[in-house]
């Protein structure tokens, strides 16, 4: 309390103080700005407020008096013998009153700039920080007038169960969305209290190299390091990161920008088979396709045909064993052949119309063709470690190179699987943060109802009870399904587009706050949180992990390598002792399809000696022997052959 007051509350008939707003004047040199937190203390009442608007004016009645006083000469205006009196008036929104009852207008009293303790009280952070069971997660530094104070989010309201989800809005390219999420995840992983359980993150990398280097340290400036220290965090990359990316159509090269050999150890292919796709077949059907008939036939396939023995003597004598897309195609072929034989009138097979069967077949074969690297035909899948997610682990699924339909499939399946496992409490962790960028695209406010949008909506509405938390980001919040963003307990805003700020969703912000948002520098954010009654501006440091652009420069993608080299790399990622030459020798002359199958089996099995296992899967080579015809075989002696002839 040694610092002098910076201003004093004023209230006039035209600008009265209310329980939620007050005005105060300051000296011209005051450090007060938009977003500053102030304290008013008078007669046993303390009021905390955040500055939302500012005014400056003088004793002039009209602007004409100023023009006439300077004879219309702007140069002369600056040479007046006495400086004209100028008043600085600020409007502040009340953050907290102490005592809270009775709720009264803000008293006329001195105004101080808030210090650390004030910020803690003003933002009600005293209820969840400090003590043995603290649940505060640093989100950044509040800074004003040379003072800096850490701002914490309440993890009960960030990761559930009280409220959950976080939504970030901001224009692209200003280190807002991705950087903020990376920093926030770092903060959560380092400070999430053990008594709240375990937490993991699953991020979808939807474009470029944004999230491709979460395990690599960034070179931070001393200022960034100072902010980390002030927030009580360590500027370290994530220690346990796993990358999953589909393969390219060649079946060995990964469809990601994270192909540098130095990064291969924790980058795995994401491969799904027919069963994995069929469970979420609804995703691959468009709006017109979704009808009870297609649903019924897909259910029939899933329950009676795929993954089991299906016998139908009308179709063929032996049972179908449908494990892969190729097997499924064979099954469809048999149905069509059978229907053709029936000829006219043969349009219904087991109550399913031929047109429905053809439609489902086309959609399913479409996904296997368009997403060749994701969907395998040999039935062997390589999936996320369901059931064994580790505490503080990050799983990044790189879908940037995938067809949009396949991206939808990946989203739908992974989020649904997370939900299933969290419902059963057998995922391995108690909370999972799912980060989805470009929410405009996946959960748009208008346009057709899609499976992915329904799924994101469900996640945002029910996820917090399960520990499934959605961290979402988009450029234009106004264009996202209102219920998806509305369910986000915490909102983060980076620099915004003026047009976006003009939409009704931002009507509660003052014009000054909007101006500040439209000109927000890099590394600053506005945060809304259930404990904060007003949005708060904070500074956050650069994330401790390598950014996409930097990462690409330091670890340039190796590009698509030849089939043999790609196989060698994949095997070496399982065991560094395997020499590329031994792999080349082992696969020389083999069919690519066989090599792919052996590689897939090795990856799935993870044997102690991957190379020996791989070679065994390929099968022992059988050397050719040129047979020289033998001559001089003695002629048969006619007579009894022992059996009577």
């Amino acid at each position, binding site marked *: 309390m040694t610092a002098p007051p910076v201003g004093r509350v004023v209230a006039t008939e035209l600008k009265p103080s209310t329980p939620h707003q007050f005005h105060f004047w300051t000296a011209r040199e005051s450090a007060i700005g938009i977003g500053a937190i102030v304290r008013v203390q008078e007669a046993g009442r303390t009021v905390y407020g955040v500055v939302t608007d500012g005014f400056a004016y003088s004793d002039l009645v009209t602007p004409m008096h100023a023009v006439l006083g300077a004879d219309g000469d702007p140069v002369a205006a600056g040479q007046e013998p006495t400086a004209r009196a100028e008043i600085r008036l600020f409007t502040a929104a009340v953050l907290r009153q102490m005592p809270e009852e009775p709720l009264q207008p803000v008293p006329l009293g001195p105004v101080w700039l808030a210090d650390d303790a004030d910020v803690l009280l003003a933002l009600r952070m005293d209820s969840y920080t400090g003590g043995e069971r603290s649940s505060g997660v640093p989100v950044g530094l509040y800074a004003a007038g040379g003072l800096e104070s850490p701002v914490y989010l309440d993890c009960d309201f960030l990761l559930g169960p009280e409220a959950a989800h976080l939504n970030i809005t901001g224009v692209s390219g200003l280190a807002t969305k991705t950087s903020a999420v990376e920093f926030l995840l770092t903060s959560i992983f380092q400070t999430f209290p053990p008594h709240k359980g375990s937490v993991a993150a699953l991020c979808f990398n939807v474009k470029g190299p944004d999230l491709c280097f979460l395990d690599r340290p960034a070179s931070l400036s001393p200022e960034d390091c100072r902010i980390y220290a002030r927030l009580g965090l360590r500027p370290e990359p994530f220690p346990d990161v796993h990358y999953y990316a589909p393969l390219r159509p060649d079946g060995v090269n990964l469809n990601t920008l994270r192909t540098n050999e130095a990064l291969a150890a924790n980058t795995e292919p994401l491969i799904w088979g027919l069963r994995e796709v069929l469970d979420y077949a609804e995703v691959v059907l468009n709006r017109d396709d979704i009808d009870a008939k297609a649903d019924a036939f897909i259910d029939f396939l899933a329950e009676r045909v795929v993954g*089991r*023995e299906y*016998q139908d003597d009308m179709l063929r*004598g*032996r*049972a179908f*064993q449908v494990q892969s897309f190729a097997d499924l195609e064979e099954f469809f072929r048999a149905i069509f052949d059978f229907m053709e034989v029936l000829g006219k009138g043969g349009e219904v097979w087991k109550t399913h119309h031929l047109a429905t069967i053809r439609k489902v077949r086309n959609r399913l074969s479409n996904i296997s063709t368009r997403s060749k690297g994701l969907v395998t035909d*040999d039935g062997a899948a390589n999936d996320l470690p369901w059931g064994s997610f580790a505490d503080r682990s990050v799983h990044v699924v790189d879908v940037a190179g995938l067809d949009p339909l396949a991206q939808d499939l990946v989203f739908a399946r992974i989020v649904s699987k997370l939900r299933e496992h969290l419902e059963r409490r057998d995922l391995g962790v108690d909370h999972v943060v799912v980060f989805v960028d470009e929410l405009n695209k996946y959960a748009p406010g208008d346009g057709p109802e899609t499976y992915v949008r329904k799924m994101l909506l469900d996640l945002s509405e029910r996820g917090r009870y399960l520990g499934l938390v959605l961290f979402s980001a988009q450029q234009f919040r106004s264009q996202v399904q209102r219920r998806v963003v509305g369910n986000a307990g915490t909102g983060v805003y980076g620099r915004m587009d003026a047009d976006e700020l003009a939409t009704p969703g931002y009507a509660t912000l003052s014009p000054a706050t909007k101006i500040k948002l439209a000109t927000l520098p890099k590394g600053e954010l506005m945060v809304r949180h259930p404990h904060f009654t007003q949005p708060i501006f904070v500074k956050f440091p650069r994330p401790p992990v390598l950014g996409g652009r930097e990462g690409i420069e330091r670890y340039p993608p190796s590009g698509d390598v030849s089939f043999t080299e790609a196989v060698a790399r994949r095997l070496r990622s399982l065991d560094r002792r395997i020499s590329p030459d031994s792999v080349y020798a082992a696969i020389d*002359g*083999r*069919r690519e399809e*066989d090599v792919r*199958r052996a590689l897939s089996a090795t990856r799935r099995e993870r044997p102690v000696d991957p190379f020996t296992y791989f*070679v*065994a899967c*390929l*099968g*022992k*080579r*059988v*050397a*050719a*022997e*040129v*047979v020289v*015809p*033998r*001559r001089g*075989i*003695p*002629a*048969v002696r006619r007579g009894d*052959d*022992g*059996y*009577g*002839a």
Partner: protein
Amino acid sequence: MRLAHLADPHLGVRQYHRQTPSGINQREADVARAFRLAVDGVIAARPDAVVVAGDLFHSVRPTNAAILFAFKQFQRLRESLPSAPIVLVAGNHDTPRSAETGSILRLFEELGVDVAVDEARRLEYPALDLSVLAVPHHALVAAERPELRPDGAARHRVMVLHGEIEGVLPTQRHTVEYGGALVGLRELGIEVWTYVALGHYHVQHKVAPNAWYSGSLEYVGTNLWGELADEAEQGIRGKGWLLADLQRATVTRKPVPASRPIIDLDPVHGEGLGPEVLNKMIQERLRALPGGVADHIVRLRVYDVPRHVARELDHASIRAYKAEALHLNLDVRRPEVRRTVGVGAPGRRQTLPELVRTYLANRPLPAELDRESFVRVGGELMDAVERDLAGA
């Protein structure tokens, strides 16, 4: 380029107790006869190559007579087709369990037969533009399987393999040959071969247009009635070998006439019938056979005959028929027993397969096992045992 495809001769197999005048088991002689006829047919067809896809002998240590016979037949084949490659692979029946036992099949190498016993062999015949990958049973059950892919530039690429191809045989088949190595369809890679000659399954069966089981040359399995039922279901009559034209991609069946009729008579339903009526019905069925039962292999099932009625049947007459036939299986079955279960609660007593299924459906299982398939496999095995017992 024509290729003769034979499989599963099972020389030396012995069934029933009838002997030939020279003291040889009659069925052993039948099987030898079938092989001799097949060799005759092959010689007459004059193919460019001959393959025998396993189980030449019924056992690892065949009788001297069987060895001598086989040697003479191969010698005949070699003499008649001096330039045709003859490829022989070992099947599960003629593969010794330990290497020290050695294989009798090597004897035929002396006749210029190319034999694969332990390891797969890739045999190149440049004059015929032919490459044959010969895969014996042992190579498929070894820790490291051979690569089942063609190599080289030969125009005709043939694989000879003894084993069971997973998922291609009818699931409801009545006969199962045990002990064969399982090979996946994808591992086999049928599409890359000109022709795949398979052995092990005794009923002729098309796996793909270019992949066939030629079937055995005689009814040598443990359940010949099952084989007959499978043949009937698949519309096949009798045994034989295959002649594949590799250029025209055609496969022709070459039947081998059966040594004797094998007849499964329509069953008699004896519910409520006395011994006299049943005797009459049995005799009518047996007499109705053209030429009688003499030297035939016959089965007659008689259902729903209580024990006391069965005891009263005319066993002297039945014995006479049995003496006349090579084998007469009069399969008299008692009615299904219904018993009271619990206290006064009527209920049917479970049959053994039902009991096994119920037990498997309720016993504790490791979580990773799918109970449904576990019970199904158990049930299938039980059914197979039942069928074998019925056919024995």
